[in-house]
């Protein structure tokens, strides 16, 4: 079976700085992939290149059997790629329900044909219920706590009915129980058939969640395989702990 996402030989530089250097990555349908790497290793740049926020200079991104290169971010979202941002970026002048409504109107709508206004409303509440925010549907993002903000970010990405969800550090700065909350949520989404790439620094979370682990260091992928094997890889150990 061909992979859902195939990133081949992607490179991206900012001026003289090489942020990504010939990255190869495959993600299978339904997989849970963990992507780790020290700060500045190019994880977010890779996400940006996959999602179209940045355009890579070299290499190709294939998703769901089609080339993504040259497509704008919103076009990739329409084809089933969704992401969350490292720092939550809610639409701050809208209620939570309306935050969810945007991807429903502009992406889900587009794929499944026009929905009735009532069914959009119902679906908004349903998605907020999934992340446990349905009581706050009419509140504004500024009223939320950090963990709720991350949940809103996830709910908004899921509202676009993605095939692949890239969660970019959805747990940074959260407490243990909050991390468990988010992990349970991601597992639940995965069980619904959404392929997930989890980018995270918190190793316990990554290890318990991922079926496979890829490691980026200074723009290069240095390891890719079973999580328990990868963390024992001497190169990975050196990258994290030094010589």
């Amino acid at each position, binding site marked *: 079976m061909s992979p859902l996402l195939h990133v081949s030989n992607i490179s991206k530089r900012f001026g003289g700085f090489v942020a990504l250097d010939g990255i190869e990555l495959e993600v299978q349908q339904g997989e849970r992939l963990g992507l780790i790497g020290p700060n500045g290793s190019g994880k977010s740049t890779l996400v940006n290149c996959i*999602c*179209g*926020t940045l355009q890579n200079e070299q290499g190709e991104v294939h998703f769901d059997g089609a080339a993504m290169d040259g497509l*704008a*971010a*919103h*076009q990739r*979202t*329409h084809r089933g790629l*969704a*992401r969350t*941002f490292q720092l939550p*970026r*809610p*639409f*701050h*002048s*809208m209620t939570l329900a*309306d935050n969810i*409504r*945007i*991807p429903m*109107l*502009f*992406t889900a*709508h*587009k794929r499944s044909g026009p929905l009735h206004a009532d069914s959009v409303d119902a679906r908004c509440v349903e998605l907020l219920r999934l992340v446990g925010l349905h009581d706050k549907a009419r509140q504004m993002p500024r009223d939320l706590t950090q963990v709720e903000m991350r949940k809103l970010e996830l709910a*908004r*990405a899921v*509202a*676009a009915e993605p095939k692949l969800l890239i969660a970019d550090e959805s747990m940074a700065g959260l407490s243990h129980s909050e991390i468990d909350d988010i992990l349970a949520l991601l597992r639940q989404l995965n069980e619904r058939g959404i392929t997930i790439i989890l980018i995270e620094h918190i190793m316990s979370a990554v290890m318990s969640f991922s079926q496979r682990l890829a490691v980026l260091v200074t723009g290069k992928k240095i390891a890719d395989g079973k999580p328990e094997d990868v963390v024992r890889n001497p190169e990975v150990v050196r990258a994290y702990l030094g010589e």
Partner: protein
Amino acid sequence: MNTIKFTLICLLVGAAVFVGGHLFGVGYLFFAGYTILQFVVLASAWNILGGYCGYVNFGSAAFFGLGAYTTVFFYKFFPLPIPLLIVIAAIVCGVVGFGMGYLTLRLRGAFFAIATLAMAVVLQTLVVNWDYVGGSRGAYIVRDEMIPIFGYSIEYIEYLFLLMMAVSIIAIVISRTIARTQLGFGFASIRDDELAAEATGVPTLRLKLIATTLSGALMGMAGAPFPYYIGYLQPASAFGLEYGVNSIAMPIIGGTTSWVGPLVGALLLGSLQQIATVTISSAVNLLIVGLLLVAFVVIAPNGLVGLVQERLKAWRRK
């Protein structure tokens, strides 16, 4: 309330104002009312791009002046009835708005504002150097005293007032319709966070181009009848600073997130300016605008509409 009902109500209110003024029989009311309505159009048009999408356009005068000079051009070339001129100005300014959007929308914030301001200067310079439409000397437009409509003969200024009333209603209905549809949600997502909007599937560039085109076209419609109103048009008055400043100040004072704000702001500020022109001098107009703008930015950053909404919310909580 659906759009058709709303439009009918607007038409009724407009007709009532017109008939009332007509029975009152004071020509000056129409003269002053025209200017106020013109600002209703400009403010509503500015708000589509500036309020809904968050792109502050300092170049409203460019579109207004372009609309006015479209009329001057046709007055010399082949005189047409004003309603047709309004349509032509809408097309010309819509196209220019689209072009401006395409060239400048990669800029944000202050950079976008400066680019639009520059466009007004460029257009004014072009007109100043174009002899056919009068160049820097300006152009005279001679209009009749009376004009027959539907068998009645009414004064020309009343006719212009009626036209501007119609354009205002068009602008308000468009502005309100946008805010209530998918387009309005898309615009708001762009205003809040463009990157997140793209990531959730909003085609931001396309929506922004729709906004600049619509906004430009409406501003052109406001400018098209202006030469007939003023009688003598020169570049400095068509591309005047007051249009750019007022188009920004009125929505901000009224409130930028809904269609009501620009309407309220334009009616309030427009009337104030007309009163000041009669009682003090037209030179204080911009001073009034400036002072009110500063006051509102400090006291009510969400405009009058925002202020009322907050009060209502607080009152409900009690």
